[in-house]
């Protein structure tokens, strides 16, 4: 298990840099993870990340992509409530890259 040092604290991550302990997450950690992913965080990125965390704390899973696009449409406007927009924010894929920055486990399966 690898560890990374963020703001003076050692944090455990897996082979791909996902947090091992969800409780280690804070905004500094998110900023670090985003930098690793070469994602420049804007307010819109934070909207997605915060929604992912809220949803996860209720359901113990990241939201399905349709659930996410709908929530984003409500918050940021209908023109942004689609998969294409989410890929613009998180080019490696909203499910995997945004979850990583949000400190959530990587969603895996046939996706």
């Amino acid at each position, binding site marked *: 298990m690898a560890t990374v040092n963020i703001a003076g604290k050692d944090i455990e991550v897996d082979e791909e840099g996902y947090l091992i302990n969800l409780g280690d997450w804070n905004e500094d950690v998110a900023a670090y993870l985003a930098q690793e992913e070469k994602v420049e965080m804007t307010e819109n990125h934070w909207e997605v990340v915060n929604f992912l965390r809220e949803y996860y704390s209720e*359901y113990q*899973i990241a939201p*399905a992509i349709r659930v996410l696009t*709908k929530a984003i449409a409500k918050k940021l406007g209908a023109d942004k409530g689609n998969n294409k927009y989410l890929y613009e924010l998180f080019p*490696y894929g909203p499910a995997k890259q945004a979850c990583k920055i949000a400190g959530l486990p990587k969603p895996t*399966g046939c996706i």
Partner: protein
Amino acid sequence: MAAPQFEVPKLSDSALTEVPEVQEGAMSHVKAFVAGQAAQEFLGYPWELGDDWKERVIGRMGEVLQKYRSVRVFLDACVHCGACTDKCHYYLGTGDANNMPVARQDLMRKVYRRYFTLPGKIAPWLVGAEDLTRETLDQWFNYYHQCSECRRCSVYCPYGIDTAEITMAGREILNYAGYGQKYSNEILAKVQKIGNNLGLPGPALEDTLAGLEEDIEMDTGVPVKMPLDVEGAEILLVTPSADFFSEPHVESLIGYAKVFHAAGVSWTLSSHASEAGNFGLFNGSYEQMRTIAMRIRDAALELGVKRIVVGECGHAWRVAYSYWNTLTGIGYGGDDPFAKQLQDQLDPRYPQPMHICEYTWDLIQQGVLKFDKSANDHRVITFHDSCNVARGSRMGKEPGGQFTIPRNIIKAVANNFHDMAAETIGESTFCCGGGGGVLTDDLMEVRVKGALPRMNAYNAVAKDQGVNFLALICAICKAQFTKVLPYYGFDMGQVGGVHQLVSTAIKLED
């Protein structure tokens, strides 16, 4: 998770892929992540090699040879004729000699000969027998995860050797030695703990389905339902959990729901059996495969359904069609009391299980479903045969139904359809490059390079016929192509399901 660095193969000028020159060890650096303690222990395997790894490997190999006579026959029968060498998409895409099916098998064959055949025990140098070394074991791990168990090579083998069974045996033995693959084994643990490969708990599933009902009604004005855990429903739909979660998968789920709605039938999903996929097959583990399949039998008994329909998932359909009968008694074969109870419960007038494509095609033939084909006019469609459906199962009553039925549906709901080159479809279909437990980011180089033969065939119809939609009936294919098409210069929006096309064209009434 920055994108991995490697050279993407160039598309050829024709639909067919040129056989590359051999590049020894070109893919030896690619190694899947190794499963950690939690997943290995949950599945009952050791989680590290330990001092006795060699005994464990040889011991389990002996058990596998006893249990699966096919494996021994396949290891004995090969005459190294070479017919398989240029049939594997991973060899065609990488040029690595160990990705020739015969060479990949030989990684195990040489060890088999040394420990399990008389000539190999007394004169190993004469018969290509070799001691098991750590280096060989590492090669097993690397190259048995560069095989998607698609069985294209076995179509061309004059002896009918099924390379997939060697790969499955290799993975089974590796698991018993404490050397499992992270991706597959974490998924195997999740499906057994939570009910599906994604780890989507019941409440999340309920919330997701409610959201989809809203979407459909907003879109069509028709209150199409997505029922969950409804006792006494006629049909239980078992579908890959990716259908709940991902694009474009969810479009097909919406398509199934519209078909059921138009047919006026009562149907339900199950939160207990919210997964059609069964990675037990990929790992060659009969026990895991049975445990996972049992969830579906339990749900069918509990809900009292009369029919079981399987959604768009390639390997799930192989497991359902070819194994469910003896694994669980869905279909005839199981003879325990619950299997018999289920056989009495299920309606004998229909095939059990039934593929969603068979179901939809039956309704189309009966004239139950109405379509506006022009709704798909912006699409020029081709169909990719998924390997496990093409070579591991069948649909309908006629031989080859697994090839004709999905195409018939597409032609019934859309005006523009063109097949890809004959050498790349039907029973000769190329794997998408992500099947059999390879659909993971740590194997992206394998996935992209292995997709080359399919991408060449697709590129040819895209150029010549203007094809802009790759229709699929497998969750793995959908996820794989969505990721891989952009590497070859195509938009990921060109990927979708057969029932996505149905969904676009179907006419609904309240």
